[in-house]
């Protein structure tokens, strides 16, 4: 079977992977389609791309999308300013009449020109406007783009593995969705979370782990919170607890929760959670 020869993704050192997601990544790679990942912040969307790059030993190229970004910025840049400067002062080794010397590749361009297959992470695509998204997918579909200034077509040497993440701030357009595979990462369940924590803290005491994870999920269940604490907050929180010499895991069980500010970042959420915890302790 051909299957055996294909590079397959099975997880990485700092990333805990579930079977379903591994299957999806492998299918997307085989179909050569971009994989769109959605999910709450802190479910490891961005980490996934890092993990794929690490386990398949491919270089990772990250395109951080910004709201004002034009597609051209992601493809290439024509550095007119340097050229103007060179033509005025002529003290560089570049040939001013050759525009190509002033073309710099953007992230997508770099991925296309790379001599080895790369992982291209397009992070937070939903920040950009719809035109950007649709145009970009055209480029990724064709695997080529034109540099208008020098009338040259850049073709991908190797089709990169494309991972796109979205925080669902805006809805993505239908044609965009049509060309991607889609997966939504649900928030990890406590069992999964324990494994994730183990990956980050290999020597953690089981007492602390159990109590911290349990408290964390209890806090997540508080109603009416704008930004629920996510994996990143939990990891930072555990780091804070470990660093505190006075801290005993037993105190968590009693409903005493130090460093609440690490978990709740919005002042209103913090006040709300704090009030609830104190009320519970009185009874």
């Amino acid at each position, binding site marked *: *079977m*051909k*299957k055996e020869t294909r590079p397959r993704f099975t997880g990485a050192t700092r990333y805990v992977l*579930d*079977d*379903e997601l591994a*299957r*999806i990544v*492998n*299918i*997307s790679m*085989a*179909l050569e*389609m971009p*994989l*769109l990942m*959605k999910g709450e912040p802190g479910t490891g969307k961005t980490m996934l791309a890092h993990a794929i790059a690490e386990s398949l030993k491919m270089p990772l190229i990250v395109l951080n999308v910004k709201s004002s970004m034009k597609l051209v910025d992601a493809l290439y840049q024509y550095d*007119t*300013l340097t*050229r*103007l400067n060179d033509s005025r002062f002529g003290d560089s080794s570049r040939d001013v009449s050759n525009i190509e010397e002033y073309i710099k590749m953007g992230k997508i361009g770099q991925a296309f020109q790379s001599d080895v297959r790369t992982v291209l992470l397009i992070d937070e695509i939903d920040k950009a406007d719809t035109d950007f998204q649709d145009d970009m997918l055209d480029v990724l579909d064709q695997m080529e783009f034109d540099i208008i200034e020098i009338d040259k077509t850049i073709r991908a040497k190797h089709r990169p593995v494309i991972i796109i993440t979205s925080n*669902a*701030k805006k809805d993505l357009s*239908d044609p965009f*969705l*049509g060309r*991607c*595979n*889609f*997966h*939504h990462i*649900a*928030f*990890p*369940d406590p*069992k*999964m979370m324990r494994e994730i924590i183990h990956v980050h803290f290999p020597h953690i005491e089981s007492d602390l782990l159990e109590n911290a994870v349990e408290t964390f999920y209890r806090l*997540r*269940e508080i*109603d*009416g*919170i*704008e*930004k*629920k604490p996510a994996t990143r907050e939990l990891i930072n929180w555990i780091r804070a607890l470990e660093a505190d010499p006075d801290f005993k895991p037993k105190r968590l069980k009693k409903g005493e929760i130090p460093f609440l500010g690490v978990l709740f970042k919005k002042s*209103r959420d913090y006040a709300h959670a704090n009030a609830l915890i104190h009320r519970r302790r009185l009874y």
Partner: protein
Amino acid sequence: MFVDFFYKLKDHGIPVNPTGFLTLHKALSLGLIGSLEDFYTASRTILVKSERYFDRFDQVFAHHFEGTQLPEEAAVEISEMAKILLEQWLKDPETVSKILGMDASEASKLTPEELIEYFKARLKEQTGAHHGGSKWIGTGGTSPVGHSGYHPGGMRVAGVSRNKSAVKVAMERRYKDYSRSGPLSQALIGEALKRLRHMIPEGPKDQVNIDETLYQTMKNAGEIEIVFERSLKDRLKVILAIDNGGWSMDPYIPVVQTLFDYARAQFKDLKTYFFHNTIYDNLWEDPTRYKRPQKVDELIRFDPETRFIVVGDASMAPYELMATDGSIHLEERSGRPSIERLKAIAETFPHSVWLNPVPSRLWGYTRTIAAIARIFPMFELTLDGLEKAVAHLMAKK
């Protein structure tokens, strides 16, 4: 292959397209799919493009490959409720039978199946009634068979899918909480807030950004390139009118209030008023609708650019809306029918919407909903509805 499955997805309202279907076949022909589990993951990742449809997909998948029954939407609610009732019954038969108005000793002779059927029958009766009359199963009230018993408080996610058949995974309905059709709940507040954040006015692009202009001009190698940006506009004023009479609205009031309270900072002014069933002479600033009235006639003094948002189920007896003395509260009978009042408000505030927790597929069955929907643009009180409502409120008139 799988054409039936494809059309079944389509019939159940999941936006699937033929290109995706062909891609799925490509995956099949590449030998990527070796088992039903693979097929489940592959078909979902390729065909379904939003987590909101994952739940629906799971149901259709389980139905197609295992023949599980596709639940009717209303029936699910009822059987869930009946299940809760049965649990309550096992714990405390006397109270339950008292509330249901049945004889405990007689009921104890029934088998569990018969009991469930009986509960279901009672629950179906109940869905028709509104205020007054049979209040024995209020949502969130003091009744032991209340709604909150089974309402999931937070996001529930089932375990890792190792060693489980795809159908079992599908039957777990892990994505129920993401489903787009459910009413707004506390768990969805974060998502709902994101929708509300779009309520920010945009001015025309009529101010020159000098820095950007200089930069772009330089980039253009000296050719002048003027960059305009949007001028700032003042934040919006919002009036929120909430129907807080009757238990049918109870679960939604705190959600809506928290929602707008969180978003308060982005508005210039947020006023909350209350009413019962429909609006007559007064709106009330206090939830008890007693102390601080706001005359509806005086609303005209407010800025017409104010966004007027009504939250209510718009379900009542037709005379309450149409008759000159419609109000069930005597002191509110002033001789003008409520429908006239509503029309006046809609005319005063061109940007107005009505958010209704009743699912839109049921709107046709209630005359007053239809009548009010002709006055106010009506949207469901769901994530989707909220999104549409915000888009409507922000549209240029």
